[in-house]
């Protein structure tokens, strides 16, 4: 029994001794700590030091020897201070090795260097010596902390400042992208995201949330998370997640609504990248919901004429006084559907009656009824015109003239739908009348072609009758001449 116990004590002693001797064998760190230099000071709190790596893991050499000649001998693999791409390659030696990284965390990503190489930061730097960015540019060389450690340069609340080291430096940025603004951080700090981030909220979006961390691409690159086609999904990563957004007290159905909207259909189905996406209305770095009075200005960046007409209309003053969100009151926000004529008037589906009830506002009510009747009449005339053209065309008649005139009817419809934003029944009638007149001309032209068709058709019948009768009469005449000759 005594023997067994003494054996155990010996084994434990050996283990403790071996740990002590192992720790003491990192002679690089021992010596540099003695020098009290910055790298060794930072390395004391480095995650790599905590998991047992030594200076020689990156710098090479023999860390067991306290003789500088031996430990820093190139024969022993000493690299010195790695530069340019060598830096990232040294990091990738471990970080791109799945088996090696599994020792620390099973869910750790190992494709960072490959992603960096493909990214905009992986392009060759102006000095031509390597990539624009190396791992150490964002993570630092010594004193690297876990991403979840608030001391890390890439901890969510620190990322904006880390990116800003380059992106806020005009002299640096003009070497790569002189057109890119360098005030993103200032703008970000004005946004809802930026303000919360500054307060220490690590859940709100920061640079990497939207642009990615290693695979960062320019906004014109289809692979980018901020390429117009990808922006709604990028924003919805957080904004459609009820659990993630529960503290923010804002809806999470924006993306679902947007997908069904006229803008979402244009973007996702027609792949029209000029269609507005989240940042077109909310801004990007300074993202914040637009104020009530500025909505028409924001919609007006694309719908300029509508916004101008609305701005000069009697509605502008009333909307401002009552704090009604301008365009949004009639068209909605995320779920903006195609504005059909049914929106106008007082019937079901119309929006005017929301305010213009027959009892409280009979003038507006009547104007809405009248305007709806006018546009409806033009639409009916348009369809009659098209039908008459079709009938004449089916009969093989020439209708190009009528078709050319039909353009004016179409134009009047479109102009009326724009001018409706002036909420001026007279102006509206003027345009409708233009269309009605053009439509009447089209119908008359098409009808005259149909009449011409029937004239030709009946003319043919008459001609056949005349020719037959002529033949018959000639027969009788010949008979008469023959009878005369026989007498």
């Amino acid at each position, binding site marked *: 029994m005594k023997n067994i116990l003494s054996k155990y004590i010996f084994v434990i002693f050996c283990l403790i001794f071996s740990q002590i001797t192992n720790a003491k064998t990192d002679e690089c760190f021992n010596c540099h700590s003695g020098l009290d230099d910055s790298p060794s000071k930072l390395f004391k709190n480095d995650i790599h030091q905590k998991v047992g790596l030594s200076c020689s893991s990156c710098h090479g050499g023999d860390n067991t020897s306290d003789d500088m000649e031996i430990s820093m001998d190139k024969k022993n693999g000493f690299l010195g201070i790695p530069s340019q791409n060598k830096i990232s390659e040294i990091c990738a030696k471990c970080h791109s090795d799945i088996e090696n990284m599994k020792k620390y965390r099973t869910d750790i990503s190992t494709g960072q260097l490959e992603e960096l190489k493909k990214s905009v930061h992986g392009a060759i730097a102006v000095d031509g010596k390597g990539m624009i960015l190396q791992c150490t540019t964002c993570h630092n060389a010594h004193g690297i902390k876990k991403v979840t450690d608030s001391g890390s340069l890439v901890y969510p609340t620190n990322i904006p400042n880390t990116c800003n080291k380059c992106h806020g430096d005009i002299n640096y940025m003009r070497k790569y992208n002189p057109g890119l603004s360098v005030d993103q951080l200032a703008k970000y700090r004005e946004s809802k995201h930026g303000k919360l981030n500054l307060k220490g909220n690590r859940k709100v979006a920061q640079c990497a949330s939207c642009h990615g961390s290693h695979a960062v691409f320019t906004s014109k690159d289809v692979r980018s998370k901020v390429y117009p086609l990808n922006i709604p999904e990028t924003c919805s990563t957080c904004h459609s997640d009820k659990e993630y957004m529960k503290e923010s007290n804002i809806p999470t159905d924006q993306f679902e609504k947007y997908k069904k909207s006229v803008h979402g259909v244009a973007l996702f189905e027609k792949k*029209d990248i*000029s269609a507005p996406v989240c940042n077109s209305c909310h801004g990007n770095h300074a993202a914040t919901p637009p104020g009530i009075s500025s909505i028409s200005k924001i919609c007006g960046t*694309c*719908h*300029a*004429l509508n916004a*101008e007409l609305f701005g000069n209309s009697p509605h502008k003053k009333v909307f401002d006084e009552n704090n009604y969100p301008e365009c949004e009151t009639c068209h909605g926000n995320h779920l903006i559907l195609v504005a059909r004529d049914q929106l106008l008037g007082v019937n079901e589906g119309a929006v005017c009656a929301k305010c213009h009830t027959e009892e409280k506002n009979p003038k507006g009510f009547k104007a809405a009824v009248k305007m709806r009747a006018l546009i409806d009449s033009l639409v009916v005339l348009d369809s009659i015109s098209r039908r008459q053209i079709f009938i004449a065309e089916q009969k093989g008649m*020439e209708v*190009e*003239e009528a*078709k*050319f005139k039909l*353009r*004016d009817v*179409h*134009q009047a419809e*479109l*102009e009326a739908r*724009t001018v409706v934003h002036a909420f001026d029944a007279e102006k509206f009638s003027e345009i409708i009348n233009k269309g009605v007149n053009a439509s009447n001309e089209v119908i008359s032209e098409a009808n005259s072609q149909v009449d011409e068709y029937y004239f030709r058709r009946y*003319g043919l019948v*008459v*001609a056949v009758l*005349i*020719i037959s*009768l*002529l033949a018959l*009469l*000639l027969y*009788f*005449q010949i008979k*008469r001449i023959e009878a005369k000759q026989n007498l």
Partner: protein
Amino acid sequence: MTQEIQKEKVQPRRDFLKYLLSSVTAGFGLIVFYPVFSFMKPPKQREVEVTSLKIGNVDDIEIGDSKIIRFGNKPVIVIRNGKEDFSALSATCTHLDCTVQYKKDESVIWCACHNGKYDLTGRNISGPPPRPLEKFKADVKNNEIIISKIV
């Protein structure tokens, strides 16, 4: 006697046949010549497939002014930039097919429907138009403006 009575009976029938024959022959002439004359009369609409068109004299458009002409079944806007410098572009907006117009004060081609704007080379520069306007060739020969399709 019987022969005389027979002659009297036959005479009006023969006259009737004669009149009828003359009338029907005249009708026949009408049905032959009506289409001939109708064919000789030029049709109301111009040819649909037009490749080149004389639109009038140089002086018909003032310098810095414009005119919308019909080129086949399409409107074309002709702008006089200088003495003998004309540019011609399709006048159909590439957004929703409205007819565009020249806005002299802004030096742009403008669409009244949705405020779409094009520069004087037809490039879409503002508003909803997704594409530039189609270009046409504008030449001056013997003081006449000739617009033709670019093949």
